[in-house]
């Protein structure tokens, strides 16, 4: 169990507006963050969104196949990511914003790499003039 959900916390985290530019935020519960120990199965560097697939164990020790999206490559590069950042087999810690329907789908908030480096996937902007 400890291997699975390291942290689930509820809170209002909208100190800035995270970007869900292309497909919107309607599917996501933006008040939640989930942090998981993950084994990367695919890092797809693509438009309109990069996405990361990984395996993580649930409370019962069963392996769950997660799919999580990030931003477009241009924004990701600006945040310090690259196509080479992740590869299958990497052991990382993923913090994500989950979808509301309970599926193992999420939006990457940040990833802590095996070497301890933290990469944020949050593009922040100010809305309105």
């Amino acid at each position, binding site marked *: 169990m400890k291997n699975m959900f390291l942290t689930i916390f509820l809170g209002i985290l909208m100190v800035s507006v995270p970007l869900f530019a292309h497909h919107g935020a309607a599917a996501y519960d933006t008040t939640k963050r989930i942090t998981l120990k993950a084994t990367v199965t695919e890092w797809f560097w693509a*438009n309109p969104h990069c996405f990361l697939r990984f395996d993580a164990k649930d409370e019962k020790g069963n392996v769950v196949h997660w799919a999580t999206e990030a931003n477009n490559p241009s924004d990701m590069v600006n945040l310090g990511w690259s196509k080479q950042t992740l590869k299958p087999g990497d052991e990382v810690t993923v913090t994500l914003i989950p*979808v509301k329907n309970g599926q193992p789908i999420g939006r990457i908030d940040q990833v802590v790499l095996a070497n301890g480096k933290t990469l944020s996937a949050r593009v922040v902007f100010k809305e309105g003039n």
Partner: protein
Amino acid sequence: MMRASLATTIALIPTLIFASLTGAQTASGQQAQSSKNQTAAPAPRHDISGIWDPGNEGIQPLGPRAMPEDGKLEHQIPYTPAGLEALKTHKPSNGIRSVLPSETNDPVVYCDPQGMPREDLYELRTTQILQTPLNVLVLYQFGKIWRVVWTDGRDLPKDPEPRWFGYSIGKWQDDTTFVVQTSGTDERTWVDRAGRPHSEDLRIEEKFHRVDHDTLELSVTIDDPKMYTKPWVALDKLRFKLQPPNFDVREMMCSPSEFAEYNKVIGKPASDKGPQ
């Protein structure tokens, strides 16, 4: 009583943090601007060429920066009845009318061209402007789109065949302000990310004002009597910073095959409502 007071305090925490961050961002932004103003050379005459970057402020996921669809009274757009009817048929995936990823009919999500004026009003990224004796060329990062703004004295076409990006002519209003008029746009496109509609009668005015050598401002006004009872300002002096001439603009494309993969892995499962 104490519990209520504690709850109020907790509820206010995000607002206070947001206010402090916004304040900090604004202050540092103003400081940077002030510092820049002290060093930036004056704007050259009749020259807006260069590689310009609006930062993240050009993304505009809730609709145009001066008129986001956020439910605020000051952001109410003056729709005609036909405009409101057209709006209802548009299902955006951002803003207060947002739907689930699989339910949106936003044409840009499916990789249709953004068209005008949306190229200015959504995902406006690094933008290169080139000037020739006959026209001004605007090269957009999103979709690797270019537009031609004619400056050879021609008028807008009287009965244009609709185009995604319409027809554009431009004139210098003064030494540092270039004004572009656009008509003949394809009404299948949306004005913005929020799904504001337009008809083929849409007229767009873009005002590019070079404030100093390193700063460009863009204002955009929408005029479409079929959809809106009066013109409205979509962008109000959005600021761009001049980039070095050797700045390499990255690709930012909507790829239909990659979108299909995204939708299979993320979009559809995320939208699944389960047994109804």
